[in-house]
């Protein structure tokens, strides 16, 4: 098992990054569920954003997978009109949410002496897909809100 991946503060840092992004940037109050360590397979939701980590210290990814109704709700709050299908605005929102969460998470880790760098997120979906994870070094964190739910998966391995 990696030295970092399952340290409690890493999971806490990720939760803090998600909460800060959703609450301060998008005015969405979220509740955190019980983190699941070492999930073997995850059923992804409608749209997912992934930030790949491949750097000197670590490799892995941060993945955020959203119910479509959660995304529609966030965008309705933002733009003031209803969304009912996945279009470019909805896909874009996944990229930006992923980007901002990762940036904040990276900030927390780097304050602890690590050196993660920014990269550009990729958006996957629409459609449910199964993600088969490596045997170790992953944590899945479920989040819920009045708008819907999403999960965040961190896979982080020390080189």
């Amino acid at each position, binding site marked *: 098992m990696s030295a970092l991946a399952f340290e409690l503060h890493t999971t806490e840092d990720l939760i803090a990054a998600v909460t800060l992004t959703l609450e301060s940037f998008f005015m969405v109050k979220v509740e955190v569920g019980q983190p699941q360590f070492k999930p073997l397979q995850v059923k992804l939701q409608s749209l997912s954003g992934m930030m790949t980590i491949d750097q000197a210290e670590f490799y892995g990814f941060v993945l955020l997978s959203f119910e479509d109704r959660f995304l529609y709700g966030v965008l309705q709050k*933002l733009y003031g009109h209803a969304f009912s299908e996945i279009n470019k605005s909805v896909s874009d929102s996944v990229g930006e949410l992923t980007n901002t969460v990762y940036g904040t998470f990276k900030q927390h880790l780097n304050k602890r002496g690590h050196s993660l760098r*920014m*990269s550009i997120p990729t958006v996957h979906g629409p459609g449910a897909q199964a993600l088969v994870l490596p045997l170790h070094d992953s944590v899945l964190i479920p989040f819920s809100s009045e708008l819907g739910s999403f999960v965040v998966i961190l896979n982080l391995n020390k080189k």
Partner: protein
Amino acid sequence: MKILIVDDFEMVRWMLKDALKDANLSELLETDNATSALQTLREAAKTAKPFDYILCDWHMPDVSGLELLKLCRDDKNLNGLKFILVSADSDGAAIETARQAGAFDYLLKPWTKASLGTILNHMREHYKVVA
């Protein structure tokens, strides 16, 4: 005060526009990439009403915000443009890189009303001085 907003994500452009309009800044244009932004800036520079500020995302596909900043600094017609880089990267090294490249300011995502307000005050103060 004429401002160009550049971000590959529509949502961020919308949020910035919304915040700037709330701050009574309404002379806004937007684009989703650096190449188009440079063209827009250069065309406006030939007119009587060039852009005063650009709020530009750092991490974009193809040409990054930092590269666009350097291109602007190398263009004598864009010397007066004040460049604000927008990024989720809070590393001191990144901020210093932006400063050394000639950025006027740095807006960190996720911004708060207070942090964006600080940037807007900085913009307004400088605009008053130079206007």
